[in-house]
């Protein structure tokens, strides 16, 4: 385990070290809510941030396993391609925005717009999510073990949204679907991957696109 201390080394130097390593275990100390921590990693490193992080923590991750022992600001794991990011506290808005692959786990709550424009990654939130979550989400899965705020899944494409608690309201073109055996299998496997064994897959509801918006109408294909 190598220790990188933000009290003694500047942020860019720490990110540069992590971006150039190929393997190993790293711990970042004294994060103090700083932004853009452990971003742009490409190798299968294990990185632990020992405290709260600011905006875009673990952004653009590829292959690395990043654990954050605290809360994170906006845009944690935004545009993640692969690997995993595990937030032990709560996340602010736009967690996992545009993420294309990998797994984002949030033990606490996530703020507004969780999984906005999701493009294939999986997000598991043990707590609740804020309003406009999964807005325009295109593929991948969002699992919410708590409640969801207003306008869940507005303008959704192919992303599945699993919710165990209450949904305050659904966004435009989002509807509840019947839980198929395949959905249940995906959900169980995501809970397992997230290390959540005390919450069972039964009792979740699944939501998806009602496919009534412009792009789903074959008549509009003539515009091309």
């Amino acid at each position, binding site marked *: 385990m190598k220790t990188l201390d933000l009290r003694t080394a500047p942020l860019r130097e720490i990110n540069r070290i992590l971006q150039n390593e190929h393997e190993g275990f790293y711990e970042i100390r004294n994060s*103090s809510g700083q932004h853009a921590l452990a971003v742009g990693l490409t190798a299968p490193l294990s990185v632990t941030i020992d405290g709260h992080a600011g*905006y875009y923590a673990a952004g653009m991750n590829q292959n690395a396993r990043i654990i954050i022992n605290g809360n994170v*600001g906006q845009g944690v794991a935004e545009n993640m391609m692969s690997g995993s990011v595990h937030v032990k*506290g709560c996340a602010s808005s736009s967690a996992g925005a545009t993420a294309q692959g990998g797994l984002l786990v949030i033990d606490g709550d996530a703020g507004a717009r969780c999984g906005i424009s999701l493009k294939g990654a999986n997000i598991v939130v043990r707590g609740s999510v804020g*309003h406009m979550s999964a807005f325009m989400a295109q593929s991948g899965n969002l699992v919410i073990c708590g409640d969801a705020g207003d306008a869940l899944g507005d303008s959704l494409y192919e992303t599945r949204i699993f919710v165990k608690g209450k949904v305050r309201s659904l966004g435009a073109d989002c509807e509840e679907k019947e839980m198929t055996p395949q959905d249940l299998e995906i959900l169980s496997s995501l809970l397992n991957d997230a290390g959540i064994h005390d919450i069972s897959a039964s009792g979740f509801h699944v939501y998806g696109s009602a496919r009534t918006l412009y792009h789903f109408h074959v008549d509009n294909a003539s515009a091309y």
Partner: protein
Amino acid sequence: MCGIVGLFLKNRALQPELGRLTSLMLETMTERGPDSAGFAVYDGAAAGHRKMTVRGISSSNAGDLESGFLQITGNNGNVHQRCDHLVLTYAEEHETPLRAYMNEFGRGVHIASCGDSIELYKGVGLPEHVATRFELKTMRGTHAIGHTRMATESAVTIAGAHPFSTGPDQCLVHNGSLSNHNSLRRMLVREGLAFDTENDSEVAAGYLSWRLSRGDKLDQALESSIDVLDGFYTFVVGTRDGFAVLRDPVACKPAVIAETDDYVAFASEYRALAELPAIQNAKVLEPEPQKVYHWEHAA
């Protein structure tokens, strides 16, 4: 973009530290607002006495202003100068003539705040420089609210800097922008309020002052503003004994609250809270949209 900070002390033992902790928080928010800064510090005056902060003091007007003040108060007031601001302390009965005197004085002098407890300072420049000019680190008190400004839609001037105080012991800082401030300002002017600037945030402060003057409690006033104010905002509001936070329904402007047994702290970003005492044991949360968070000291 702007930065907001606020610190509301529950433990009296921290009161001598209020200014130092507030300046740490304010300086960390420099990247969110490097062009001007301001802060209100609440530190109770003696019973029966009032405090007025006036700004725009220079060597050319300080002498005249002070002699006028002493004449009105019958040599029975106290004057304390901090850079280009004066804090005047005086018996309650002099409030009305003093206010009229200051409003008519001209020569760049403005009332910044007035009340039992509030002192309000603001200036152009880096937050660190503004805090140093007014010796924020040495100030004590029960609670403080600060703002670092990055002006986007009006000029970089002292008048445009926050906090805005539009009522006794009241102040507001704002991160965001309001879209219906002109019509609301006209309504409030009809109700008898006066505004110093064309600034949208001053209208939000004025609206809350108007509601408070009609008998609302601070949380009720904020509750009612949700339906009236149109735009983006995170507000932190101070009164003599109270401290409140409100975010708009979309919650697009950042906010973090940390609470311990000793204090409630607010900042636009967690970074600004990182140096507070025992922050690692604080309950840290992101305030929900449209929900009024409100704390009050026992009167």
